[in-house]
């Protein structure tokens, strides 16, 4: 069986001693930033990117992936014990998880969250492995025409399915595309929008932009709000859930995993949408919905499973087609490009060791997370006692050093400073910066494929519609955009995302 061969190959990559080590580093860092509110996985991954240069591509990707799904585990610990979501994806876990903690069942809630996450992680790994093969076969039929259409679909779908105003997000994608155009034009060798600055001729690095917009902008906005951090020092009595707890939680876990796996693949879904949907579903299915909000174990198990499954399956578009589903995956694409690997539909056939190694490492990483999170939960809770007034200067410093480290250039530090200001401006006017990052990372590929297509087709725009695969993809784009114009769908979308 091809699938087993692939998984075995992946496991043999993931189980190499150095890859195990990097996986462990990734999930430990991920858990740490997950536990700490105010630092998300995006700035962390951006921060660590410069230091993955020296690693082999598989070690680098395994570590960065570990940070992402590790953060989903860590986020729930804070949600349950302190009632503050460590990550946006664990907002829902606060509701019933913290209620359980108040009733003295913190240990059970933590255990169920971890078990649900592990179960979902395992299932999602299998889903990725199964889906990857047919998708990569399809991907082989792709030429510049289809790839351009696919990139358009990726960008549009990410905008439509993510939260925030669709029109504003589209404008942000364009802004990102524009930033991606800065630098020397590959086909003519002419400098574009470099304003005579030598450091700009290779184009804008996305790391300072990501760190400025997401890391520093966020810190400035956080500092404006009055600090409100109640550390509930709960004694965690028993971590082992009772048989009834498990029986109540298991169906929710399965449903959460299924829901999360589906929603995770969709661009823009990422980690935020699945837990909300799962919570709504559990509440609807429950015999006694009034228990929710008062410590219902299903309200922890379902969303936790959904959020982990979603976090992992959001790798599918990236690993098979080279299309990022959200801003974090855009950073991953950046990481690949820094390693000299051109992301795209050919990635699975050209880099099977890398792709399957990352897939297999997710399961290994989930196993590690179970161990790291349950017995060592006390350690993570004590991390919450670090006050924010000490935390944020450290983050600022590490952002400065990390940005400098990408190209040993001070220009990037200045660029990050500018982006911090713009990032703060975006927060102030209520615009999501994530689409900008997608546009920035995909921009150069979009232009290259567009120009190549136009060259082949002799400037005939109908080529996008006369090729069947491309026509279908663009058809989906059109439907998505038209659907956004219909007031009814707009209303449901608002409700679904606001819940």
């Amino acid at each position, binding site marked *: 069986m091809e699938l087993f061969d692939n998984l075995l190959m992946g496991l043999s990559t993931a189980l190499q001693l150095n890859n195990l080590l990097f996986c462990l580093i990734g999930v430990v860092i991920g858990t740490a930033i997950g536990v700490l509110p105010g630092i998300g996985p995006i700035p962390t991954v951006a921060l660590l990117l410069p*230091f993955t240069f*020296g690693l082999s591509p598989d070690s680098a990707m395994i570590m960065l992936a570990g940070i992402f799904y590790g953060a989903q585990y860590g986020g729930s610990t804070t949600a349950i014990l302190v009632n503050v979501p460590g990550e946006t994806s664990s907002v829902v876990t606060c509701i019933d998880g913290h209620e359980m903690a108040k009733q003295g069942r913190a240990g059970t809630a933590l255990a169920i969250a971890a078990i649900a996450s592990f179960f979902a992680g395992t299932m999602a790994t299998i889903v990725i492995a199964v889906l990857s093969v047919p998708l990569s076969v399809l991907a082989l039929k792709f030429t510049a025409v289809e790839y351009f259409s696919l990139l358009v679909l990726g960008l549009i779908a990410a905008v439509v399915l993510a939260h925030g105003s669709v*029109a*504003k997000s*589209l*404008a942000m994608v*364009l*802004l990102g*595309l*524009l930033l991606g*155009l800065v630098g020397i034009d590959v086909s*003519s060798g*002419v400098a*574009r*929008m470099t304003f005579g600055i030598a450091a700009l001729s290779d184009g804008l690095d996305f790391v300072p932009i990501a760190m400025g917009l997401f890391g*520093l902008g966020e*810190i*400035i906005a956080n*500092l*404006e709000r009055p*600090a409100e951090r109640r550390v509930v020092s709960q004694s965690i009595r028993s971590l082992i859930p009772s048989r009834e707890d498990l029986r109540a939680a298991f169906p929710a876990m399965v449903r959460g995993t299924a829901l999360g796996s589906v929603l995770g693949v969709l661009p823009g879904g990422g980690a935020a949408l699945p837990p909300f949907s799962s919570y709504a579903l559990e509440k609807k299915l429950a015999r006694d919905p009034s228990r929710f909000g008062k410590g219902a174990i299903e309200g922890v198990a379902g969303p936790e499973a959904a959020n982990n499954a979603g976090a992992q399956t959001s790798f599918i578009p990236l690993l098979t087609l080279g299309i990022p589903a959200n801003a974090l995956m855009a950073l991953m694409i950046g990481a690949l490009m820094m390693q000299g690997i051109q992301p795209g539909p050919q990635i699975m056939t050209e880099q099977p060791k890398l792709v399957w190694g990352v897939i297999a490492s997710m399961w290994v990483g989930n196993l590690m997370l179970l161990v790291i999170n349950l017995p060592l939960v006390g350690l993570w809770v004590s991390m919450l006692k670090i*006050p*924010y*007034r*000490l935390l*944020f*200067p*450290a983050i*600022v*410093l*590490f*952002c*400065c*050093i990390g940005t*400098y*480290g990408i190209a*040993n250039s*001070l220009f990037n*530090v*200045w660029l*990050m*400073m500018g982006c*911090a*200001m713009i990032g*703060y*401006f975006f927060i*102030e*006017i*209520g*615009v999501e910066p994530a689409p900008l990052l997608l546009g920035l990372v995909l921009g150069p590929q979009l*232009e290259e494929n*567009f*120009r190549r297509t*136009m*060259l082949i*087709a*002799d*400037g*005939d*725009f109908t080529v996008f519609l006369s090729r069947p695969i491309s026509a279908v993809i663009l058809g989906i784009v059109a439907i998505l955009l038209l659907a956004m114009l219909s007031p009814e769908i707009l209303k449901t979308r608002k409700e679904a995302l606001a819940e």
Partner: protein
Amino acid sequence: MTRSRIDLQDLLFGLFLVAVATGTLVATRNLVIGHAADMGPGYMPRVVALALMAFGLFFSGRGLWRAGRGIAPVQLRPLLAILASVGVFALTAERLGLAIASVAAVILASFATREGRLVETVAFAVVLSGAAVLLFVKLLGLPIPIWPR
């Protein structure tokens, strides 16, 4: 969030986009446009800039037209402290070395909040600077001077 007669969020975003689009059009005015079959370097920037311009005008217009949310008052303290911290790092890192630049950056960043206590901040800055030198220069081999040259 205050209510206001105009939608300030929309208006500001729209004006920002118009400014960016105008800047792009000016900066790329000398680039060859070419045509669809053989695009010059100026083709894509101009297409994107024009689209941004359209979005910008739309948001500006909508912002003026409908009532909406104002923006939260800007608090200068955190904004200036963080920007100054990054700026001072950029100015000093290569000339004075990582050790001194780190201490300066951390102390300046701490001014962003009123909670800080001076002694604690300075001590923390020194510790953090040591950790940064150990981690980034010694362990990860970042080519940056540690002390003034």
